[in-house]
Every structure is written in structure tokens, then in C-alpha cells.
């Protein structure tokens, strides 16, 4: 590769060429294989940093979703996709905490005083998994299932000290804080998940939105609910809730 070609490609990828000169470069890639190979490499280099962020986000999602399928017993791997049930062994999937829309709709007709209580219907968690945090996970599961949210929160904090990147534990920590009527802290706990691109993003956005109901801030709740997009978990429930606000 001659120096003038290197300079030409520098100018092309720095967007310093006029349109006609850009076209000359593109035309040359069709007639000069060596130049075309260099052009393609430079294009890959220009794209690589931007695409790397996407790779990392996808890898995180695959890690999270894959654990639920490959670590679970065979009979549980057969569970249908995208149902509202939660697999006892699928810690991360369980943590998705799918709201049962039907249950929510049933609640609409009841004289419930609190919108938060109507909509905050989560599945029982299944925290038990192999690993260093097993004891804490079991304690968190038992405490949560019996409504002892302060104890569950302590156990979850213990889990997160061992596994700080455990997204499921983070999600349930947020839910415990909601149940303990500590909405601002719940939002702070859920924020990284809600801002991220993991499989639990929609859950985190949903529970963050519900936290505003505890503070009687319907406007903030609606604004947060509108971050859920069609097709995401909780989207339909969010639309129902917006109508009620």
C-alpha cells in the first residue's frame, strides 16, 4: 500500500473528501482487489469500537438467558417461552418476576385502595442455586415468600456482596424496598437494570414506575411507564395502569 493511498483512505474515513472524490474511492474498491481489502479493513476498524458495545450487551444477555436453559434440569427446560410462570430453578428467569396481567385485570374490579397494590403482583422468587451464595439465596427465597421483606433484603444484600453482578438479586432487592415502603431507594437499586439492556430491563422499568405510586406521583409514574415499548414484558399492564392514573 503506497503512502498516497494510505493518505487517501485517511481522508475518506475522516470524511474530508468531496462527494466526487469519495465516489472515486468506492469505484476503485471494485477494480483494485488490494485497495478493496485495505478499504474493508479500515471500514471494520472504523466500526469496531461502536459495535463492541453491542457485542458486550449481547454477551451479557446471552449469559443471563443461557444460564436459565443450560443450568436447569431437563424437565424445566421444556417450559414454554414467554409464559407468566417462573421456573423454580431458574434463578434469573424467576427474577424476571412477570406480572400476571390476568390477575391484575381481576383486581381492577375490586375496591383496592392502592394502585400500587393492584399492580405490584410478582411471582414468588426461586433464589436457590448452586454456588457460594447458596445459603443467602435460600434465606432470601424463604423470607420473601413469607413476606419478611426486611429479612429478604438483608439476605439479598449478602448475596450481592458475593455476586455483585447478580441482576436477579438486584431486581428483587428493588421489590423488597418497595414492599418496605422505601420507593426512592428502590428506584436507586433498580436504576442500573432499568438503564441497561439486559433481559430484566423491562421488569426494572416497571417496578421503578410503580415506586412513584407509593409517593402519590402519578405523573412521574406515567412518564416512567412510557419507557416500556410494545412487545416488552409489562407493556400491556402499563397501558392499563396509565388509564387508571
Amino acid at each position, binding site marked *: 500500500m503506497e503512502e498516497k493511498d*494510505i493518505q487517501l483512505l*485517511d481522508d475518506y*474515513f*475522516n470524511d*474530508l473528501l468531496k462527494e466526487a472524490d469519495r465516489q472515486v474511492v468506492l469505484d476503485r474498491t471494485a477494480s483494485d482487489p488490494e485497495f478493496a481489502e485495505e478499504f474493508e*479493513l*479500515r471500514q*471494520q*476498524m*472504523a*466500526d*469496531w*469500537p*461502536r*459495535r*463492541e*458495545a*453491542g*457485542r458486550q*450487551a*449481547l*454477551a451479557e*444477555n*446471552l*449469559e443471563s*438467558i*443461557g*444460564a*436459565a*436453559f*443450560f*443450568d436447569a434440569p*431437563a424437565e424445566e*427446560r*421444556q417450559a*414454554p*417461552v*414467554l409464559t407468566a410462570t417462573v421456573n423454580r430453578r431458574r434463578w434469573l428467569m424467576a427474577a424476571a418476576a412477570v406480572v400476571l396481567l390476568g390477575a391484575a385485570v381481576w383486581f381492577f374490579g375490586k375496591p383496592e385502595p392502592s394502585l400500587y397494590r393492584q399492580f405490584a403482583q410478582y411471582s414468588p422468587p426461586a433464589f436457590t442455586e448452586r454456588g457460594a451464595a447458596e445459603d443467602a439465596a435460600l434465606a432470601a427465597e424463604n423470607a420473601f415468600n413469607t413476606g419478611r421483606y426486611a429479612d429478604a433484603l438483608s439476605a439479598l444484600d449478602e448475596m450481592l456482596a458475593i455476586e455483585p453482578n447478580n441482576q436477579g438479586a438486584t431486581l428483587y432487592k428493588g421489590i423488597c424496598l418497595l414492599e418496605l415502603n422505601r420507593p426512592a431507594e428502590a428506584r436507586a437499586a433498580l436504576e442500573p437494570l432499568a438503564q441497561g*439492556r*439486559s*433481559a430484566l*430491563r423491562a421488569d426494572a422499568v416497571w417496578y421503578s414506575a410503580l415506586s412513584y405510586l407509593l409517593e402519590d406521583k402519578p405523573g412521574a409514574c406515567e412518564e416512567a411507564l412510557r419507557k416500556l415499548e410494545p*412487545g416488552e414484558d409489562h407493556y400491556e399492564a402499563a397501558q392499563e395502569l396509565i388509564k387508571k392514573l
Partner: protein
Amino acid sequence: MHIDHHFIEALRNNDPRGIREIYQRYSDQALRWVTQRGGAAADAKDIFQEAVMALYEKALDPSFVLTCPLGALLHVLYSRKWIDRFRGKNREAGVRKENELRYTEEAFTEDTLTLAEDALAEQARQERLGKAFTELSELCRRMLTLLSNGVKPAEAAVQLELNSVDTLYRRKNACVQRWRAVYLEN
């Protein structure tokens, strides 16, 4: 376009629903394949994930259209990933497994095999680029990342505390040449 192409869109968009469906449909097949060959569930999980990541490299090409069943393509990808593991640990076992794989791959179409080879080659190239990128200076990495993400050169120059856009371009060109040299050395 094959009917499974919507999975390519799911990968492009990092859509958790679509990705879960990929796992739901094909992870059991991978798990069985690996465990029948003496591997553990953790091995199956790793190579399946690597196979999906290889497919993602193809999906990043906006003109890429899936023309074969996704299950077949994933099978070729994860089985080759599995062989690579053996090749790294034990050459003789690797050759034996490779011969076995060649036999089983006769069932797949040329299209599937070509797509798999393209995906693996692209993944290897991106990994080489990534490895070379980590050897650049922090300034180079920050500058190239800002510009790749669409930050205007003038804004990037300010963020990087460079005197002018001309300085930014000179530094950038030097960084690119360094990156290219390290990449081609590896």
C-alpha cells in the same frame, strides 16, 4: 429469505424475547450433542453462546439474509467450536473429532456450511481487531471510540483536550496505523 430470518433481527436488536426463543428452540439440541460427546452442561452453554456470537457477526452486516434453517447453522457453528476446544487441548483427539464432524456435516447444505465458515472467519477477525485495539494507548482507544460512536471531531477534540481538529486527525491517523500494524502482526 428463510422463515427463521426473524431471529437474525432479534440478534441485531439484542431483543431478549427473540433470544430466549433461540435458546428455547435450540439449546436442548446443543446440550444433548455436547453431553453425548463427554462434555458438561457448562461446556454446552459456552459453545452455544460462542456460536450465537459468531452468528451475530454475520447479523451486523445489514445486507445479510438468512437462507438456511437457523438450527442447522447453529449446529455447525457449535460443533466446530467444540472441535476447536479439542484441537487446543489434544491434537490427536482434535483430528479424530474433526473427521467425525466432517462425516456428520455431510447432512448439511453447502449454503449452511458456507454461512457457518463466513461467520466463524468474521468472528475470528473481529477478535483479532479487538486484541490489537487493547494494545493501543488510552488516548487512541478513547479517540477512536468517540469517533466511532458518531461524536463530531470538534467535540472529540474538546473532550480529549487536543488543540484543534487538525491535531485530532493527525493523532487519529497515527492511532489507526498503529492499530493496523498490530493487527497484521498477530
